[in-house]
């Protein structure tokens, strides 16, 4: 892995080395002459029509007529002369350093970064769980998935309640996905073998098996799992599963009703936004079912550089928005024995990070339901990425 480097020759303080000269209203022509007179700067181009990417090199600068602003190259002496002119009366009203701005695209910041995972996974560090005194103690977290490796050594002594809603299969995880999700949301911070990977490390674990060992399931089983979690007073339901949707497809009225009823009983449902995008080719798929329901918290995925994962579904319609993001690329967590641990990627991995953080907030603040949602969103780190991809941003432990 490599660390990001800046090779565009610009200053490291976020400025470009150029200056913005604010001209007095209706004084563009006079201001342009003044630039030349006091600082010897010849503004060759007068160009509102100059589009992005225009080459400013070669000219001393350019004037943006309609804005009344000149962008100029100035050496320290010239800058000092301009600053004096700005302080005095005249056509030059102000001077400031030009700041570097970035295009708001996912590709822009997709940079590999080196992360030290010797003690904690990058995901735990990204949400600040390793710094939190909250552990989720006293909070019930339901993970609806492929079940759980009930004999996993990392969970020895933990309180685990398991139930299968898949006909003919026990809650024992015959796949691995469920064990991975339980590990991220509720696993240990000090497993004794490898880095800490669990967020709500003292939460009460409710394992609802709603997907078969083959990884498939249907609405009825998932709804049964949600009802079971509500009945058992789980403050958080983590669902790293769903079904793809098409643009314009309405959300399920049934799941929305179920979610509002769960909320009324203190249960927040957190669900994966889906992995159907391929941003490497520019394709962004809509948030899947049932994360597209307004009352279900939809989770997208970011990588260790806090760039949006290429597969992460986005907000495509007026409904079905991504609400927050969590770590979802190259995530280490528990896996059924004998493998014990495994690294996988997906919004499925981002979702239990958010569910775990929700449990910490629930413990630390007493918040449930919509209040818990609000605290998750309010405390999330804002990111220089489209809100349609990341919602309120990257969730943070209290």
């Amino acid at each position: 892995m490599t660390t990001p480097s800046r090779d565009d020759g610009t200053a490291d303080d976020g400025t470009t080395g150029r200056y913005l000269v604010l001209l007095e209203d209706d004084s563009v022509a006079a201001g342009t002459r003044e630039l030349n007179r006091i600082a010897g700067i010849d503004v060759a181009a007068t160009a509102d029509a100059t589009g992005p990417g225009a080459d400013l090199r070669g000219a001393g600068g350019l004037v943006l007529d309609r804005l009344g602003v000149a962008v100029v190259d100035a050496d320290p002496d010239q800058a000092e002369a301009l600053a004096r002119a700005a302080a005095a009366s005249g056509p030059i009203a102000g001077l400031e350093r030009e700041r570097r701005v970035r295009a708001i695209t996912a590709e822009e910041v997709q940079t590999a970064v080196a992360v030290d995972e010797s003690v904690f996974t990058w995901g735990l560090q990204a949400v600040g769980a390793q710094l939190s005194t909250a552990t989720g103690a006293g909070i019930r977290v339901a993970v609806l998935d492929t079940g759980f490796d009930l004999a996993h050594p990392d969970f020895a002594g933990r309180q685990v309640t398991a139930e299968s809603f898949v006909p003919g299969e026990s809650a024992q995880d015959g796949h691995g996905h469920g064990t991975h999700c339980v590990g991220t949301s509720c696993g240990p911070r000090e497993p004794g073998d490898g880095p800490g990977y669990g967020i709500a490390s003292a939460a009460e674990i409710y394992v609802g098996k709603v997907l078969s060992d083959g990884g498939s399931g249907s609405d009825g089983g998932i709804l049964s799992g949600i009802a079971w979690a509500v009945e058992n007073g789980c403050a958080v339901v983590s669902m790293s599963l769903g079904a793809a949707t098409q643009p314009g497809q309405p959300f399920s009225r049934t799941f929305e009703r179920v979610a509002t009823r769960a909320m009324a009983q203190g249960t927040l449902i957190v669900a994966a936004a889906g992995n159907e995008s391929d941003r490497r080719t520019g394709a962004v798929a809509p948030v899947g079912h049932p994360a597209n329901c307004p009352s279900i918290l939809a989770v997208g995925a970011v990588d260790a550089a806090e760039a949006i994962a290429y597969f992460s579904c986005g907000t495509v319609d007026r409904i079905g928005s991504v609400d927050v993001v969590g770590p979802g690329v190259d995530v280490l967590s528990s896996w059924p024995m004998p493998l014990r641990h495994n690294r996988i990627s997906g919004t499925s991995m981002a979702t239990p990070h958010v569910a775990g953080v929700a449990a910490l907030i629930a413990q630390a603040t007493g918040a449930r339901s919509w209040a818990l949602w609000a605290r998750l969103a309010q405390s999330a780190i804002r990111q220089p990425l489209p809100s349609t991809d990341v919602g309120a941003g990257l969730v943070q432990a209290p």
Partner: protein
Amino acid sequence: MTDPGPLRVLVTVDDDGMGRLPDLVADLRAVGLSVDAVLEHVGVVTGSIDPAGVAGVRAVLGVEGIELERSDWGF
């Protein structure tokens, strides 16, 4: 065309219906719903019904809506 067979459906119950769920479930059975699960905490009944019976289910007092079950869930 072959007979598509019974449809697997999700029946959402309104708030009034949730207060008298046993009676409502009996009404649903009476109009032909083969009930799989009654999820009382969230007010949903799952089951299957012949396509011709869907309108009858929707007309039962206390039913808020009926939706086809999706079975294409995955990760």
